[in-house]
């Protein structure tokens, strides 16, 4: 009795606290709903979480760094404990970075964790984006979230570049110099724009303080707001899932947010922390003391940006040296095209892709179930093609280091990559699409014949039959849906409602755009095997002995 009253009293105390909050904010209903929120289980759904958690690490370590960093271009003479730079004149920004690295307890570790987490942040955004793209998770109703995601990617790249540039070392100053020239290459407004951003001719004294505010306040603020929006939309729309037994367009199957998902995701948070801390401890990153202070008259061999800018560096390196002079004004195509036009096209295509695909496929339906890459061979092909294009630029951005490592000719690598950038993407599109079609073929065989057992049976008549083991019915059902068959027969659905087939409404399209759309649609859904109209064809193959 005494025990009961004691626990009852304890319960009351806990409840009292909760009730106090609930009475004032009415949170109980929200919490109850939220705690029961269901999250599906698939490893690839955790990729976005890497981005979220590395962003948390970047924020936490970044706050520590701001306590010691001086965003100032004023000249000082270094007098700290790093002997090989003592007495060298440098900006306060660089001197404070050295101070942070050598004379602040834990400063270098924090800097390195910050930098590694930033690298992982952009890496994981990219990997997460691959998952979303290749599974069709960007389709309606999640188009807006795709747009937010692309914006986050661009901002993460800008934020990373700003952070890389802040210490004002020789490497980052070289990068800023390139950025300045890329701005200058924009016709008519270029020089004005560059002057506006830098406040003077390069390098000037205004840029570092401006970059600092952009890096620690403006972009992180926007990133935080957009990440919140990104996650609230996920929360509201619920997570997508791959088709599976009992999974439909109208339900979510998985583990509840509380306790299972919450504990798991927290564990994952600490794993991401652990990897960043281990990298920060054991792998040196951005050794600014070796680069030396920035001096416009100096440059180091092998000056590279961080990985997410490699593609721009590469496009600049691959572009032939073209320039024209129009009415006394020079237009540097060799900088304008690879530095401004190309990234503009690339990022706009990323934004536009969901709408483009929906326009071509006339797919206006809601999709909560994901597709496998093989289910949409053309989309997968386009994705692989873009990645090949990006990958070649990425490699070109480090071609001097590659040429030096393997003792190749630098010009040789440039020319090989120039050829590859033209022929590589179509070839990779073809291979990826054929690969998907092959996998589809395999799936069809599984569906109609089942697994091979390796047993060949001889019938009394002398006929030989290959014995196959049919798929379990729930697996067959899922596979049939993924292949775009309805469940009774084996014909492809004639409607586009599930996004698997052309609309094929029998009307000839009118107008040029409509005809183009129709042609693209046919291309999108083209299959190299005829639809199986006759189930009799799908009988197991028989071998007859003469």
């Amino acid at each position, binding site marked *: 009795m005494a025990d009961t009253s004691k626990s009852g009293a304890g319960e009351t105390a806990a409840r009292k606290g909760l009730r106090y909050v609930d009475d004032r904010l009415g949170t109980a209903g929200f919490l109850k709903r939220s705690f029961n929120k269901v999250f599906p*289980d*698939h*490893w*690839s759904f*955790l*990729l976005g979480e890497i981005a979220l958690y590395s962003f948390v690490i970047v924020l936490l370590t970044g706050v520590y760094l701001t306590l010691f960093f001086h965003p100032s271009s004023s000249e000082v003479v270094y007098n700290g404990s790093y*002997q*090989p730079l*003592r*007495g*060298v004149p440098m900006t306060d920004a660089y001197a404070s970075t050295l101070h942070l*690295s*050598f004379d602040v307890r834990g400063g*270098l570790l924090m800097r*390195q964790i910050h930098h*590694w987490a930033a*690298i*992982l942040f952009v*890496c*994981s955004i990219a*990997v997460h984006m691959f998952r979303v793209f290749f599974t069709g998770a960007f389709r309606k109703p999640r188009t807006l979230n795709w747009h937010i995601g692309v914006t986050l990617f661009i901002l993460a790249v800008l934020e990373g570049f700003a952070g890389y540039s802040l210490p004002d070392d*020789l*490497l980052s100053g070289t990068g800023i110099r390139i950025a300045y020239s890329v701005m200058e290459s924009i016709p008519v407004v270029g020089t004005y724009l560059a002057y506006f951003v830098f406040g003077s001719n390069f390098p000037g004294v205004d840029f570092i303080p401006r970059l600092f505010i952009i890096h620690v306040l403006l972009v992180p603020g926007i990133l935080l707001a957009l990440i919140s929006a990104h996650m609230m939309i996920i929360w509201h729309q619920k997570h997508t899932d791959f088709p599976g037994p009992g999974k439909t367009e109208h339900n979510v199957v998985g583990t509840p947010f509380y306790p299972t998902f919450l504990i*798991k995701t927290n*564990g*994952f948070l600490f*794993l991401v922390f652990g*990897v*960043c801390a281990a*990298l*920060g*401890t*054991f*792998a*040196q*990153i*951005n*050794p600014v003391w*070796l*680069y*030396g202070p920035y*001096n416009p008259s*100096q440059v*180091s*061999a*092998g*000056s*590279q*940006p*961080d*990985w997410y800018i490699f593609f721009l560096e590469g496009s600049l390196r691959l572009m032939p040296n073209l320039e024209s002079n129009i009415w006394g004004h020079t237009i540097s195509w060799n900088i304008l095209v690879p530095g401004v036009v190309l990234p503009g096209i690339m990022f706009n295509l990323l934004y536009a892709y969901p709408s483009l695909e929906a326009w071509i496929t006339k797919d206006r339906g809601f999709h909560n179930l994901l597709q496998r890459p093989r289910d949409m061979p053309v989309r997968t092909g386009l994705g692989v093609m873009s990645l090949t294009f990006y990958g070649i630029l990425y490699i070109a951005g*480090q071609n*001097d*280091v590659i040429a*030096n490592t393997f*003792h190749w*000719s*630098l*010009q*040789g690598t440039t020319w090989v990559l120039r050829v590859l950038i033209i022929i590589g993407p179509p070839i990779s599109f073809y291979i990826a699409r054929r690969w998907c079609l092959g996998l589809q073929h395999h799936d069809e065989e599984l569906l109609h014949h089942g697994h091979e057992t390796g047993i060949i049976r001889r019938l009394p008549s002398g006929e030989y039959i290959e014995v196959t083991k049919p798929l379990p019915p729930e697996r067959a059902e899922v596979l049939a849906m993924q292949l775009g068959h309805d469940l009774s027969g084996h014909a492809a659905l004639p409607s586009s409602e599930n996004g698997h087939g052309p609309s094929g409404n029998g009307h000839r399209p009118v107008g040029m755009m409509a005809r183009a759309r129709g042609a693209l649609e046919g291309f999108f859904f083209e299959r190299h095997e005829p639809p199986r109209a006759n189930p009799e064809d799908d009988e197991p193959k028989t071998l007859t002995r003469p």
Partner: protein
Amino acid sequence: MNASPTSSSRVAGRLSARRRSLASAAFVGVVLGVLGMLYAALAPGGQASTSADPAVQRGRDLYNQGCSSCHGFAGVGARRAPSLIGVGAASVDFQVGTGRMPLQHHGPEAPRSRVRYSQQEILDLAAYVASLGPGPGIPQFNDADWQKADTAYGGSLFRTNCAQCHNFAGSGGDLTYGKYAPSLSKSTPRQIYEAMVTGPENMPVFGDKQITPDQKLAIINYVRTIKSQADPGGAGLGRVGPVSETVVGWLAGIGILVIVTLWIGARA
């Protein structure tokens, strides 16, 4: 020399003006002859005049065996290899002392390689090549000389003059058409100095008016300091900048995390 009196006696009394001009021509001939003999006696490079030095003699034998097939006898050069007259002892000490010579194969760059000659043999070869014509000698300084030079000043000079090819930490860098600036990690102080004064392979010569001897020693001190200095942030990743960091980021960073997600997914 005594041809002019005979010729003058032959034409004596007939054309005194011609006699005078012949006499002056003879005088010019005498002066030129004397000058020529003086030059032959005093100018360096004559084999006969240097053969007294035993190092040069030994060096000549080594040269004739190991180098003359490409560089020609007496270092005059040939189609396959340049003349060595005037390259100096420093050049020989650098090229042979780093194993670049004898050349293993023709290419855009002679790589650092196993040293084929003993220290004494290298000095003999250097003495012989130095005897062919004047050039930079093997620099004479000891460790204390460069160790007391100003490291930070050397660093500034290094970033201005060297880093654009050899990279910020002397890890080496790529040049055009298969040429490259090698890593300085194996270079001795003397070799760094010799490289600066002789400009081997594709490297420019940094003469003493461009970079004074004291500045050269400061650069050497910086290169050696950086080389011996531990990487405070963990593994140095080759000190080539973001390229190796990127490989680590993708493989060790996101690679491990993707494996972790697969592990978590498999346990679901």
